[in-house]
């Protein structure tokens, strides 16, 4: 990247750090990691997918919901710090659009979300989106209209930076930091006007009817059910309620869940619905490719490939979906 573009980005980040806790992609232990930026020079501007997803910013691992004291239930009203997520790439913005939809009526999520500024970044717009090998839905030419951001910074092929605002807050921030040349993009809803993506719908049908496909038996034999894929996945949002007992004050927390763990489906008496690895991994795929698309008309997988990178036995969602896409509804193979 040209040095003047880097300098401009650093200046922007430094200005942002004056009023926000800035989280950004930073090289840490040889991995591109979303973490708090203490120095704007540490921020990576490669536009690559980070090792960890951004979801911890929106749905923290543990979140206090309410306290019970002397028989009175009191909802937790934490003071939310101002946070900026700087450098989210387009796939992560797509995952965020899903989160915003899923948690639209969740007061805890919304309270936090209202204090987070989203600054998307592309290192080679729009070519890097094309390079991400999106497989779960068709390429969207007008994707910036269907993801939520306050500011989007696109580094063009020429090396120049182009700024977009996606909200009133975004416009105000840009003007405040002296960036007066920007285009405004109006959010037109996470689901395009023409409706749910056709490739996604076709895949939904195939995954839903695929339980007898040999793929799941193969995965049953190799998957360790370690659950690393769900931790790495930017669209996994399942959770558990965990209660803490204290003699004077009890409370309930929401804790990130994991459908690969043994107690996920365990009911009183010990019965577990998900009692084999095959059932667990199929359940995970059905969430991504069936339940999310059917309910929200959005893809449940954004093709980031983080699950492939973290899988200790090399399970590759790109290859698995390619196999399932070939199904012609005669699934007994």
């Amino acid at each position, binding site marked *: 990247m040209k040095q003047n573009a880097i300098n401009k980005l650093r200046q922007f980040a430094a200005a942002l750090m004056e009023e926000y806790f800035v989280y950004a992609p930073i090289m840490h232990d040889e991995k591109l990691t979303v973490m708090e930026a203490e120095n704007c020079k540490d921020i990576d501007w490669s536009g690559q997918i980070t090792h960890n997803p951004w979801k911890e910013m929106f749905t923290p691992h543990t979140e206090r919901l309410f306290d019970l004291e002397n*028989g009175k239930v009191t909802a937790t009203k934490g003071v939310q710090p101002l946070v900026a997520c700087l450098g989210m790439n387009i796939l992560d913005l797509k995952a965020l659009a899903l989160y915003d939809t899923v948690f639209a009526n*969740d*007061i805890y999520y919304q309270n936090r979300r209202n204090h987070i500024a989203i600054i998307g970044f592309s290192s080679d717009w729009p070519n890097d989106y094309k390079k991400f090998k999106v497989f779960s839905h068709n390429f969207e030419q007008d994707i910036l209209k269907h993801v939520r951001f306050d500011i989007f910074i696109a580094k063009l092929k020429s090396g120049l930076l182009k700024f977009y605002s996606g909200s009133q807050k975004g416009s105000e921030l840009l003007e405040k930091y002296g960036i007066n040349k920007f285009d405004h993009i109006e959010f037109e809803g996470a689901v395009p006007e023409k409706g749910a993506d056709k490739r996604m719908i076709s895949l939904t049908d195939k995954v839903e009817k695929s339980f007898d496909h040999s793929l799941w038996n193969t995965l049953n034999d190799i998957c360790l059910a370690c659950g690393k894929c769900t931790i790495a996945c930017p669209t996994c949002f399942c*959770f558990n309620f965990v209660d803490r007992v204290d003699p004077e004050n009890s409370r309930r927390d929401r804790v990130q869940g994991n459908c690969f763990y043994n107690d996920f489906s365990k009911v*009183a008496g010990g019965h577990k619905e998900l009692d084999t690895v095959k059932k667990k991994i199929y359940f995970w795929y059905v969430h991504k490719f069936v339940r999310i698309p059917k309910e929200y008309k959005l893809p449940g997988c954004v093709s980031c490939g983080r699950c492939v990178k973290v899988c200790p036995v090399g399970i590759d969602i790109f290859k698995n979906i390619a196999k399932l896409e070939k199904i012609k509804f005669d699934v007994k193979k």
Partner: protein
Amino acid sequence: MNNIYLPKVIKVIAISRESIDTNLIRFKFASATDQKSFKFLPGQFMQVGFAGWGECPISICSTPTRSCEYFELAIRDVGQLTHKLNELEVGDEVLARGPFGNGFDVDNFANKNLLIIGGGCGFVPLRPIIEDFLSGKIISRKLQIFYGCLNEDTLLFKNEYEKWRKHAELGIILDKPTAKWRGEKGMITELIKKGEITPDTVVVMVGPPIMYKFAIKELQKKGIKDANIWLSLERKMNCGLGVCQHCAIGPFYVCKDGPVFTYSQLKGISGAL
């Protein structure tokens, strides 16, 4: 914005021992306003528990017509939390959220023969349907009730059978009764085989998955359509709102799209039954 995760305080106002392991508990909301605005459908459930102990889904077993006064839960002692709920005394307070789920489509039962099949503690959500039939709120042509249990000790709502028999056909069968038992002995499928069931009957069934498997076969032999077999599923639940994923089966959430489904909705889904 309403806080969907915040429970309300409910108070125990009456308790009766229903079976060897189940208490029937009548609750009232601590807040009169909450009680007045409380509405539910037969087949819906509440998430009940204590802070520090979590919460669990329990089907409501009283009639919706009294919802602005109280609601009842029959709680079987099967785990740590339900054990603690069975230790409740009148005046004690617990936390509850709900009602959740779709409930039975009672309008669909109108002017049809209705057959209720309950297995073990699965009978709990069926009681409001019977009560509403007896009170004339559900206007079905005929009501048949088939109830299968392990033994006499596990039968629920024993004091109500006489009342039910006045207006409905009640068949009870026990799998392992004591020597004193003079009624039917065997599995619930025996009652279905022997029963006079017309093919246009609407069946509402709640019980363990193994019961569904065999009962459905017998019902199909009687000519009953899959779309007329309604059943309620039980799964682990946390949020009750179709978000947390614990209760998902195929494309559905048991807590939100269910717990009541028709057999035609479920039959192609792996692991549903």
